[in-house]
């Protein structure tokens, strides 16, 4: 349903995302993992055709039968919100402060010609009820600042699923929320996904969240896909040195006996990436060759880009 081939994004000639290819089937969830600056959000914005000014995408993005790259904005507008929708990280700032929540949810329905304004207002209330907002009829007339953070994120979800899109992109939808709220929102997203059969791209830096949500995971670092495969393999039997590093840096709950091993070094500046593997400078296996030549793709239980590591055999 969604197919990315060799998607690259660059800013003023500097690559921020390199040759990303992936496929997504209806009902499937892909987890995009990576630290900030790894290119996760750029992937999402490139999909939506909403890259900030100055960023240029190349390669191919096919949604169904439509090639999205190079499509005119007017045509993209017909797809955005209708075929593909997006939930953003910051529920505090992602809602318009001067419009009521109900109006913002109903807006897409009217815009895409699905409903008349009056019907859309009623549908907005139903959607708000669906996402678990209490007293939806009254909440629909509230302004965003009158809602709590969790409620706002529920409203964002209602807005995104309003037109029953085939693809939902969730960019760190729970990162700004308390842990207890995170669980609720994740459960809600899973429920809605199973109910509607939409495909989902779930972006997070948190491996446990990816584990809970995604069928397949893709680990990004410095704009390059490090490792990808079924979530249980990527997390259970990581082969790429970076994925292993990520796993080792996660606390497992036994604070007394466990020794956390952070990955040495820092995330490289995107404007000064080496031509080869972006992880080369921090990798235990890294050498001069790594930094200069793009790593080859090796496939097994998972697929990975690395000069040295081999995936576990399938």
């Amino acid at each position, binding site marked *: 349903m969604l197919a990315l081939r060799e998607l690259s994004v660059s800013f003023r000639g500097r690559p921020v995302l390199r040759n990303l290819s992936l496929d997504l089937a209806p009902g499937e969830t892909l987890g995009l993992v990576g630290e900030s600056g790894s290119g996760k959000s750029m992937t999402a914005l490139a999909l939506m055709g909403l890259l900030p000014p100055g960023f240029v995408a190349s390669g191919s993005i096919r949604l169904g039968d439509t090639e999205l790259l190079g499509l005119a904005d007017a045509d993209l*507008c017909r797809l955005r*919100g209708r075929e593909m929708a997006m939930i*953003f990280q910051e529920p505090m700032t992602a809602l318009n402060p*001067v419009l009521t929540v109900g109006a913002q949810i109903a807006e897409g329905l009217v815009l895409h010609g699905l409903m008349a304004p009056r019907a859309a207002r009623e549908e907005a209330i139903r959607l708000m009820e669906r996402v678990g907002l209490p007293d939806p009829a009254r909440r629909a007339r509230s302004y965003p600042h009158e809602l709590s953070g969790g409620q706002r994120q529920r409203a964002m979800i209602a807005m995104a699923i309003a037109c029953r899109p085939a693809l939902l992109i969730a960019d760190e939808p729970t990162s700004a929320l308390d842990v207890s709220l995170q669980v609720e929102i994740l459960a809600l997203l899973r429920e809605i996904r199973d109910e509607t059969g939409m495909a989902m791209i779930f972006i997070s830096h948190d491996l446990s969240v990816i584990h809970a949500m995604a069928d397949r995971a893709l680990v990004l670092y410095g704009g390059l896909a490090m490792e990808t495969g079924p979530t249980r393999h990527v997390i259970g039997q990581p082969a790429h040195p970076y994925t292993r590093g990520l796993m080792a840096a996660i606390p497992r709950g036994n604070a007394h006996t466990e020794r956390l091993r952070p990955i040495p070094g820092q995330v490289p500046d995107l404007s000064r990436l080496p031509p080869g593997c972006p992880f080369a400078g921090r990798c235990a296996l890294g050498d001069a060759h790594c930094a200069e030549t793009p790593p080859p793709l090796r496939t097994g239980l998972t697929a990975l880009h690395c000069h040295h590591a081999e995936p576990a055999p399938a």
Partner: protein
Amino acid sequence: MALFLIKRLLGLVLTLLFAALVIFLVLEILPGDPAAMMMGVSATPESVAALRAELGLDRPAAVRFLEWLGGFFTGRLGLSYTYRVPVAGLIAERLAVTVPLSLLALGLAVAFGVTLGTLAAAQAHRRADLIIMGMTQLGLAIPNFWFGILLVLVFAVGLGWFPAGGFPGWAADPMLAFRALLLPAIALALPQAASLARITRSTMLETLSEDYIRTARAKGLSRSQTIRRHALRNALIPVLTILGLQFSFLLAGTIVLENVFALPGLGRLLIQAIGGHDLILIKSLVLFYVATAILVNAVVDLAYGFADPRLRVGRA
């Protein structure tokens, strides 16, 4: 909410009272003998004494001050010294020019300023933006009265499309009266539109970088739909705060422009009153202007609270 309003109202009344007191002091107490000042050096002592009696200057200042203030409610503001008619009547009559002129200019300034500012922000750093911003620099630099003179030169003296000045009154032919106000209103609106355009551009640019703009785009709204439905209101809320200040410049501008176009408005009356040392008239006119400026600022402050839902008090 009620307490907030009462506090605001009290502050407003105090400011107005204080303004009146300052004007009264400057124009009626500090000159020593207003009657002598009004009549000039050639007046005989008898005639000065007669005027003093007519104005009631022998009575205590506090009484005169309160009477004057009361006059704003009863309409008894005394006789103009130069025109020999009631001041209240003069003011009322002249409002028929000044009020439509200010409103017309304000409307033009807001319409052009907001449109051009939005356009410039939408085209930020491209050619249209540079052209609009260049135009606003010129608009701020050109004195409004000179622009008025140039308009007369081109459209009245040159092309003959508009009258060079004067006002036929609303009664005979409203269309003709409107035409007489159009050129001065355009001249008056020029600097206002320029500064509104600059402010709108900067608040619009700020608004367009907000997260909710991306949300709106993700919903499928086009750029222009996003600007109209989501950005404009947010960008205009801060513009509203400076509209009060803009209005006070606009009011000052009417004084000048009415003189350029020989319009029988309050401003021309004021300058004529100054020429004739008509302190009685000046006093009430100045207070009228200042009170209007203060009241409009207060109203704008309140409107600000209503325009931004986050500032509305007393809602669930």
